[in-house]
């Protein structure tokens, strides 16, 4: 492997890892703060990809579709928390598993009813369609760099939001001392609803910007869900920083695994997770 290929694979790793982070950060926040195991989180990614397809055909432009999609996602997340998830907080984890499993089936079928079961592609907007030369006659698509940039900006924004703002303070406090936050007069119901809506919007957004790079297909949510759970658990449940580190780690291990050792690549991520959990049974970073 020469230096240029190495560079390309590193860029791919970072881009995949950052995309995973967008989905996983919502999952880890929802789990860490509300204590809900949300199996349907992968479905939001799938919904995002299909939204990107439908909206960009409808509106004729991907950036416009992204904008409308995010607004829709926030509204959808807000409503979903209100109608379904707010009943799950007091329930046992296994019942949450059961209900969100039911939601996966419903979302998949609704998608099938509304958009059909075909595999689709989404066109890259013209402005970002090119690729740049990185030496040795190799090129790298601009769109992938754009995705990495956007994800990085979002990660930075989340960091600032969580560590520097009042809302972030409430989120951090809510994760560890739920009752205390409530007794200080903070509207925890609203806080939960907002966090959930943001988590859903992040996953939907990730699905939308990933759509032009991979095809849009039924069942794409299930695959992402499991990898994201791996990310959340390796990083430590509830830790956004942990999710970022773990997502990048998974990105590198998976990408280089596929290049260097085709046969064992699928299992590699799970070997990594098992190894890390046997070494540190509560993940790399403890919640907080």
């Amino acid at each position, binding site marked *: 492997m020469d230096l240029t290929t190495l560079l390309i694979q590193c860029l791919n790793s970072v881009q995949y890892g950052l995309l995973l982070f967008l989905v996983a950060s919502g999952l880890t926040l929802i789990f860490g703060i509300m204590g809900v195991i949300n199996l349907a989180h992968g479905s939001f990614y799938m919904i995002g990809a299909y939204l990107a397809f439908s909206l960009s055909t409808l509106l004729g432009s991907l950036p416009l579709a992204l904008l409308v999609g995010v607004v829709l996602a926030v509204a959808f997340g807000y409503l979903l928390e209100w109608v379904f998830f707010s009943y799950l907080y007091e329930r046992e984890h296994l*019942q949450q*598993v059961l*209900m969100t*499993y*039911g939601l996966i089936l419903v979302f998949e079928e609704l998608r099938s009813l509304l958009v059909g079961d075909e595999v689709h592609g989404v066109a890259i907007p013209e402005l970002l369609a090119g690729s740049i030369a990185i030496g040795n006659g190799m090129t790298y698509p601009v769109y992938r760099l754009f995705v990495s940039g956007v994800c990085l900006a979002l990660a930075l924004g989340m960091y600032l939001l969580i560590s520097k703002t009042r809302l972030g303070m409430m989120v951090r406090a809510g994760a560890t001392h739920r009752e205390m936050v409530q007794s200080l007069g903070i509207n925890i119901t609203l806080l939960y609803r907002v966090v959930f809506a943001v988590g859903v919007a992040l996953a939907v957004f990730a699905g939308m910007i990933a759509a032009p790079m991979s095809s849009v297909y039924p069942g794409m949510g299930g695959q992402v869900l499991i990898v994201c759970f791996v990310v959340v658990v390796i990083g430590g449940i509830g830790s956004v920083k942990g999710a970022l580190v773990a997502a990048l780690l998974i990105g590198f291990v998976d990408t280089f695994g596929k290049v260097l050792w085709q046969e064992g690549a699928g*299992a590699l991520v799970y*070997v990594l997770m098992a190894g890390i959990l046997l070494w540190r*049974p509560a993940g790399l970073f403890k919640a907080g």
Partner: protein
Amino acid sequence: MTSNTSLSRVAWALAFMLLAVFPLLPEPISGKFHTELLSKVMIMAIFAASLQLLVGCTGLVSLGHAAFFGFGAYAVAMLAPMSEAGNGWLMLLAATAGAALLALVIGALVMRTQGIYFIMVTLAFGQLVYFVFHDTKIAGGSDGAYVYFKPDFAIAGWQWIDLERADRFYWFVLGALVLALGSLALLLRSRFGHALVGIRHNEQRMRAAGYPTLLYKLAAFVVAGLLAGLGGFLYAAQYGFVTPEILSWHYSGNALVMIILGGLGSLGGAVAGAFAFVLLSEGFSALTRHWQLLFGGFIILTVALLPQGLAGLSLRRPRRPLPTPTSPPTSTDTPRERHA
């Protein structure tokens, strides 16, 4: 934990009698299709009951249980000869003992973790087994492998059962189900079973009382793996082919859904859940192509209306909700009920 009342014993006996005479019923009710469907239900019931021992009884939520089921099925596929029926006894031994051994190895590694982390580590090992069979050529890779003939269970040349016939195979599966449920019920009634329930309620207290809880949990994991291997053996024998799909986390998830749906903690719940899961998915898929919408809706309604699962519909006195493994019970929670 089957309830010790005579009412429940009568119910079990009635259910098994009904199941036993089913293939003898007249054609529109019985018939090959329905007999095979019920065989499938009973195989899933064995699988679900084995997981119930871990999840409902011991409080160990495993999301990698399909590894043992699938290993049992793959053991059959790997040992089956191409041109004649394989030795059933040998395959059965390989499937169950192999799955138990695998469970011993995986169990010894995963017992370090707890709660949600336990769920994820079992998932990781389950996926590991999945990828071993999916990405390597030991048994057909992602295409799976065939079992051309049903296993042959002759005793010294005496062909006492012809598994190629649907009704004979059905009774064979029924026998396996009775054996599996019977041994689980006995196990749960023993000191060992009581200790497992104690571990679910409060592991620290059990350890303080001098129980080697790690060994108990590991033993439960191995027994559950062995029985799942039995289910896998029957699955491979019934369908004649195995694919990596039966090793995947979806399959583990299905088994988990069965026991939550049926009701956690009781063998009856596992059986009821397996029946509901398989029959509802068959029934709904006969109704419409978009059957998962109905099935998903049914699951959501069950969670909303029946927090105890389908077993909560029975006439028994209401039970307190089980403490979850991730939120340890409070100190006032004394396991004084009879769990036998």
